[in-house]
């Protein structure tokens, strides 16, 4: 399957580490992450509301969470987390597919949603990806998930396919 990407590459995105102040005046550190961060991510995903899962991820049980994290914290993936003090509030990841393109996903804990952390995470993740030489990023999102779709559009993603249950979006870096 060939995916349609925007003709023009996106602007340069900010790179980690950076600190933002979210809309509830909390200082949030957005930093790169790898498998050394497994334990704090397991903790975040154990706190994650199952109602906010998308297309079967994150898994619910700890063992399945660990197995899933092992895949996406692998060396050829790109990860950033948003930290409030010592709590991981959000996580975004780029995972390579077989065509040298990368799939994006982002998760923000319920208590931290709606405060601009998601946008900061996606932008910083894409900045990290640019620094790593990644140039094609795609994602799928459920068609009823308007907040997520507008976030991705604001960042520069364009809809590449809307024929399926999920909407597919893509960005060129």
């Amino acid at each position, binding site marked *: 399957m060939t995916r349609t990407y925007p003709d023009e590459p996106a602007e340069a995105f900010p790179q980690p580490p950076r600190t933002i102040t979210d809309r509830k005046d909390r200082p949030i550190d957005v930093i790169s992450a790898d498998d050394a961060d497994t334990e704090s991510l397991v903790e975040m995903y154990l706190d994650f509301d199952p109602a906010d899962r*998308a*297309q*079967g*991820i994150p898994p619910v049980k700890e063992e399945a969470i660990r197995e899933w994290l092992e895949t996406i914290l692998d060396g050829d993936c790109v990860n950033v987390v948003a930290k409030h003090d010592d709590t991981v509030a959000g996580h975004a990841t780029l*995972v390579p597919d*077989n065509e040298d393109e990368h*799939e994006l996903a982002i998760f923000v804990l319920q208590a931290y949603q709606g405060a601009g952390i998601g946008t900061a995470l996606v932008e910083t993740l894409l900045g990290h990806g640019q620094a790593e030489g990644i140039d094609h990023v795609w994602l*799928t999102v459920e068609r009823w998930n308007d907040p997520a779709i507008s976030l991705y559009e604001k960042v520069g993603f364009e809809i590449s396919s809307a*024929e399926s*249950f999920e909407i597919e979006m893509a960005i060129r870096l």
Partner: protein
Amino acid sequence: MKLLLGVGGSELSYQALTETLERVSETGDELTVAVFENSDIDADLETIQQRIQEHIDESGLEPPIRHIEGTSPGSELVNIAESEGFDRIILGGGGRSPLGKIQLGPIVEFVLLNAQTPVTLIR
């Protein structure tokens, strides 16, 4: 119960075949296997048929196998089920994206949305 199982050559479709054969040998349901070429899968009809036959031989059952021609196997499955009084359509599907998201292909999606019979998705 009359069951119509669609197999298009994906790994998940063979898995669905194995599970259905196991279940049918317990329940005695009347199974028909419908073979088609899934345009997302790189396998020709002959190869798919051969693998199906191997699975069936192992099971000791003898379900009839029929071919679905054309470019929209989903719609053909729905037609057959409806016009020939099948009680249920069974399909394998729901592969995972690189990140682990469940994805439904166009054939599964068509059948789920358009079938007049219950549909079992084995994933």
